[in-house]
């Protein structure tokens, strides 16, 4: 997601302004000049200054353009190219929402399967991986590290 410096600068100005305003409304500690408000206000003002400078393009001469090869167009369903970036965070949210109901093993298998297929793995690789990897992760974290991973629909024999 390549945005222009004007956009990111403006976002910083808004964020800094909001932080400074919200900070200034924090209750003061009675009998003391400096309290919880001072630090967010300073940071907010700093962010506003930085945002303005960035939007004006100051300091860009220091940046090294990194030529990053995007996925070549016209390779399968590449029209949705940008949206692919949302798959990993979506999978993490999926984990949060369903892991307590489905249990760790099925949830993890779905995540690995979807991710592997989205990254272009053949089903010949993705399906065995989705079955084996969650079992190993479960063994390592549940047995060795004693992390309480939910059992859900598919309790494990160990």
């Amino acid at each position, binding site marked *: 997601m*390549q945005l222009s410096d004007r956009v990111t600068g403006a976002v910083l100005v808004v964020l*800094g302004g909001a932080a400074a305003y919200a900070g200034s409304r924090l209750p003061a500690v009675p009998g003391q000049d*400096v309290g*919880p408000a001072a630090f967010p206000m300073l940071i907010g003002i700093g962010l506003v200054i930085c945002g303005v400078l960035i939007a004006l393009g100051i300091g860009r001469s*220091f*940046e090294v353009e990194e030529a990053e090869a995007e996925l*070549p167009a016209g390779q399968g369903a590449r029209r949705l190219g940008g949206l692919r970036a949302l798959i990993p965070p979506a999978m993490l949210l999926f984990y949060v929402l369903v*892991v307590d109901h489905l249990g760790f093993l099925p949830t993890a298998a779905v995540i690995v399967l979807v*991710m592997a297929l989205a*990254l272009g793995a053949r089903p010949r690789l993705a399906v065995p991986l989705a079955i084996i990897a969650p079992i190993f992760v479960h063994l390592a974290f549940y047995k060795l590290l004693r992390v309480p991973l939910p059992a859900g629909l598919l309790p494990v024999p160990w």
Partner: protein
Amino acid sequence: MTEMLEAFRMVAAPDVLVAILASAIYGLVVGSLPGLSATMATALLVPVTFYLSPIAAVATIITASAMAIFSGDIPGCLLRIPGTPASAAYTDEAYAMTRKGQAELALGAGLWFSAIGGIVGTLSLVLMAPLLAEMALSFSTFEYFWLAFLGLMCATLVARSSPIKAIASMLLGLLIACIGMENPAGTPRFTFGIPDLLGGVEIIPALVGAFAVSEVIRAMVTPEPPPLPRRKFGSILAGQWRLTKKYQVPMWRGNLIGIIIGVLPGAGADMAAWVSYAMSKKFSKEQEKFGTGHPEGLVEAGASNNASLASGWVPALLFGIPGDTITAIAIGVLYMKGLNPGPTLFTERADSMYALYIIFILANIIMIPLGIAMIRVASLVLRAPRSAVMSVILLLCAVGSFATGNNLFSVILVALFGCLGFVMERNGYPVAAMVLGIVMGSMVEQNFITSLIKSDGDVMPFIERPVSGVLAAMTFGALLWPAGVWVWRRFGGGRLPAAETPR
């Protein structure tokens, strides 16, 4: 002396030795995979360290990070894709050597001088830390404020980005650190009514999100790197002794620069490698050979990034101020294991400190045989399909962050920081500066507000005390340095080559 013997006994415990060996292999493999950095390797280790003894926990972090920093040279040299950001400075040079048919020499130089750099860096840690500890005993909140702030400013000088964007990233990190009620007055701030935010943003989910998930997201939108051609390597260490003798001066300069940059709070291995490579080029007698496969820069920068790794522990152990993102994680582990950073650590827990030194030396010695083995199997490891590696990494991100507090909210944080890290990196905002802002936010605020309360709102004590005056001058130097470079480039010589400006 008894402490020294006790330290040897601690390191020789079977669980510590197993932890060192396992984390060495883990670090080598993760570091060599493009996109998986040394910081990420360490962040994913944290849940594991919960269940280890204190010395074994610290040993895994030291060993895995040292191995990962070396191992990042391997794909850089063979594929022209740096495995870790600390190798990026000399990737082109190493790849040029491979194309000239000197892959063994380039990889061997990476390995040999990494090990030397690591050992010299450790010696500097052994010598410097007790001396500084004595001084640190007299530090008050004013000095701690400046030290933490200096660390943040150094983090903004990290290579290849606009200094203003770096400062903005750092401020963003500080703002994130404001969330919760961990502030001098205990007032809930910016929690938006979410009870999970009352305790603040935890550092491990933020790190895992910003470094690991953002990398997984990046893999979704970039093409897969080409597979490594299978090749037979000749002797890896042949010719290294000749290089050592020939490039003695660059090697020592690299070690020294690495140590200095490592000791500065906030500046770590990436910056050491960039600065050293630029220095090497500037002072070389054969400048025209740089970029065509010349080992001199490799020697200097390879030694430098590993030296900075060890000396980065100096501010971490003495002040609890991270030298880089790896020690930021290490500090958390130290607190968890009852080895609270501070000057008294060196007097009260001297045996643990000696054990730490021994682990450093040991890790850098076993790096040579294990590194050679890793180079030989590299083509196999690098053949692992990215779709498999990245999908398992995402699963580990979810489980690892959940394990830090058995709380699903951390997984949401990981997802958010993954998106934030990805967008920031795409637009030239350095993620490491933001992460250090989050790590040090409460420390900066605590010391700043306490100092202001002590001085009744007067700012003079911040610059009147001798040590804090020096630290203040250094901080403003770091702040004004890019402006000075800009003015000089614009109106002065105007011929300053881009590679020499420490950014």
